[in-house]
């Protein structure tokens, strides 16, 4: 009985501690939200107070900010690029992984090691030459950049799909082929349905990467087509003070889609992260 009540007490303390921590974790977002409704002059002078009649700016920051950086265009570009890059990566790398796993030659194992190696190479290594190459090949537009994302995402995607394909028995595919199905039918009707959970993991990890990516879109399409992170950083401008009011409002708008996505797909996201980590 005494152990039980002691346990109960530590549990209550624990919940209180965790709740305090959770509030602390959420507070940065709340500070930004509150400040986004304050006139820009008061954000740096009274960052932690609620707006009062003198400092309240209504939706002004949102209007000015979204005009300045064309936020809704940026949202469109980000959405378009993320959706098609993620679909592209999942499809292309699952096919590549199947080929590399089922065809055993010196070439395929060399290609596999190169792909895995690419995962640890920092982006700065290739950023200059890659952006020049993209420029020469006319890939410097929202459609072309998808090719680049598939190329950069190929390492992780192929690696994860290979890990899973190695674990499924080849006999199923052999049976299908003996029954007269060609490789295309075998892959799309037999193999692909089995890859579903890995495909979700790959899609989640890549969504988080592509949506938030800054340097690749900045260097290749940044002057004409600004994605959300590029647009946000663009608010900094060249010299002079940053319009912090517009900045706060745009930070809020930038966070809304990702938080909504998280609330809807939370289960898959956390599962995807764990699965990705275990295989990585």
């Amino acid at each position, binding site marked *: 009985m005494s152990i039980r009540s002691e346990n109960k007490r530590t549990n209550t303390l624990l919940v209180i501690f965790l709740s305090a921590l959770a509030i602390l974790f959420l507070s*940065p977002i709340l500070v930004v939200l509150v400040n986004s409704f304050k006139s820009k002059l008061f954000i740096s002078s009274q960052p932690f107070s609620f707006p009062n009649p003198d400092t309240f700016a209504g939706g002004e920051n949102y209007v000015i900010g979204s005009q300045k950086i064309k936020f809704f265009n940026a949202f469109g570009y980000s959405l378009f690029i993320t959706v098609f890059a993620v679909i592209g990566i999942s499809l292309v790398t699952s096919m590549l992984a199947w080929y590399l796993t089922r065809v055993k030659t010196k070439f395929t194992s060399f*290609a596999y090691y190169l*792909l895995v190696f690419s995962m640890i190479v920092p982006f700065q290594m*290739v950023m200059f030459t890659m952006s020049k*190459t993209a420029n020469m090949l006319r890939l410097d537009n929202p459609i072309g950049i998808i090719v680049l994302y598939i190329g950069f995402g190929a390492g992780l995607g192929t690696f994860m799909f290979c890990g899973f394909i190695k674990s499924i028995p080849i006999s199923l595919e052999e049976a299908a082929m003996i029954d007269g199905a*060609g490789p295309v039918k075998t892959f799309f009707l037999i193999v692909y349905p089995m890859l579903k959970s890995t495909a979700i993991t790959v899609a989640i990890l890549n969504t988080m990467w592509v*949506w*938030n990516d800054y340097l690749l879109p900045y260097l290749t399409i940044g002057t004409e087509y600004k994605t959300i992170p590029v647009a946000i950083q663009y608010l900094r401008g060249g010299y002079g003070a940053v319009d912090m009011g517009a900045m706060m409002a745009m930070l809020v708008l930038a966070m809304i889609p990702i938080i909504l996505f998280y609330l809807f797909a939370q289960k898959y996201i956390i599962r995807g*992260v764990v699965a990705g980590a275990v295989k*990585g």
Partner: protein
Amino acid sequence: MQKSIQKYFVLFALPGLLCFAIAFLVPMVMGVVLSFFKFSTVTDGTFIGLENYRRIFINDDFTSALWFTVQFTIVSVITINMGAFFLSLLLTREVKGTNLFRTIFFMPNLIGGIVLGWIWQVIINGVLLKSGVTIVSDPKYGFWGLIVLMNWQNIGYMMVIYIAGIQNIPHDLIEAAQIDGAGKLTMLKSVILPSIMPAITICSFLTLTNGFKLFDQNLALTAGDPGKQTEMLALNIFNTFYGRSGFEGVGQAKAVLFTILVAIIALTQLRLTRSKEVEA
């Protein structure tokens, strides 16, 4: 079966390999070659041997960025992993609201680096307001600011991986230890820690490489100010490339060194912690 799949090389393997070649492989090879050239676009180089590598060390901005990056990475790896492990212990104790807490602690991870940098710039400047300074008054503010930011972003992610590790510990192992009279500390040291070595491997790998390659957060939080004193390696390389013309070769040479460094660190770390993993 291998033969018939091989006939479909163009469909299955070529798209992925082509994207990979365009985005990564060709730029990577070009980058290594160009590090021995003086150039301003990728087609106008003159061979200058190791001159670019020598010029890296003419001033000390690269070595000071390296030093800042090393210090930052060590501190952030330790704080993030300890924080995440501590939270994972608390959240596997079956207290009320565990799922809600997990959701909240994980959320900052989805927010992109640029947005994170600006959020924390406002908050840190707000905290420093009383002392009449800003985040770029002294490099130590930038340093600790980045540490806090990275903890906020990454603790939840690593926590999720640690939680999965702890939940995978077989129940009879824990019960056996309890019957043998193991105290809480012994339990932690002799049962929990050895069983979650794979999680420790992957979390320290992720935090280590993330820390070393950090760019977006660094750019948005301080952009390297004051002076170049909070500039990390990735940002230093970026500024060398795009800051002033005539230094593209030096930037590329720095990028090669950076890549070698990251590869060595990543491989050493994997070997070190993998050797401590026990067979389950």
